[in-house]
């Protein structure tokens, strides 16, 4: 991957990841308002906004890093499966996206029910779940940012083997590895 392309994909990746984090933080605020507010209009507005933010912002932003991240990893010497921190980021991102998909239906349900003004005590469990799930997602995304910045040491067995093989090749054919 050329230097220019790598910088472009990296910028896109950071933008998507940080945008996702910010959108989830907004979602959490709305989930708390929807849960705790006594004003029916605020509750209705909060759940409608949550539904729109999820469909038009969080959903695209959650899948975009799954494209830019592996592209960056595979296009650079870092690799996708060579370092534990990259693997951990991939697992967290993938799980977060899957969990988001699972929650699409309850989010839509809350928005529809709140819009009709028929939220009842029976819906409390879903309301609380929205708060817990978005708080957990926020924590997971903060963790991925920490991993990306600190890059904790640790090479997988696969990464170690590939590095060893590349060293052997570069010793045997030094002109090819430059």
């Amino acid at each position, binding site marked *: 991957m050329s230097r220019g392309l790598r910088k472009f994909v990296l910028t896109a990746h950071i933008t998507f990841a940080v945008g996702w984090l910010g959108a989830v933080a907004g979602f959490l605020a709305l989930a708390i308002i929807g849960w705790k507010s006594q004003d029916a209009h605020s509750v209705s507005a909060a759940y409608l906004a949550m539904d729109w933010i999820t469909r038009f912002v969080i959903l695209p932003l959650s899948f975009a890093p799954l494209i830019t991240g592996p592209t960056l990893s595979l296009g650079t010497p870092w690799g996708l499966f060579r370092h534990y921190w990259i693997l*951990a980021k991939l697992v967290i991102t993938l799980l977060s996206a899957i969990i988001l998909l699972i929650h699409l239906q309850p989010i839509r349900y809350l928005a529809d029910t709140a819009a009709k003004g028929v939220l009842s005590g029976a819906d409390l469990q879903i309301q609380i779940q929205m708060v817990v799930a978005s708080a957990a997602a926020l924590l997971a995304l903060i963790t991925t940012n920490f991993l990306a910045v600190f890059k*904790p040491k640790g090479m997988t067995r696969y990464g170690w083997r590939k590095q060893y093989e590349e060293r*052997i090749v570069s010793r045997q054919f030094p002109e090819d590895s430059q």
Partner: protein
Amino acid sequence: MTQPPITPNRPPAPVTPRWVKIFVAIFIILVLVVVAMHLAGVDFGGHLQHMR
């Protein structure tokens, strides 16, 4: 395709870092908690049934 030769003095594989072990442990605990909640009917199953 030629394979790179493996010399007999190959260094030992690196030890898995402590943070990775902690990460895996937390991950397993979270999966077990979610499965337990699901089996107890606390999470999504209950919600979906309620929504129908």
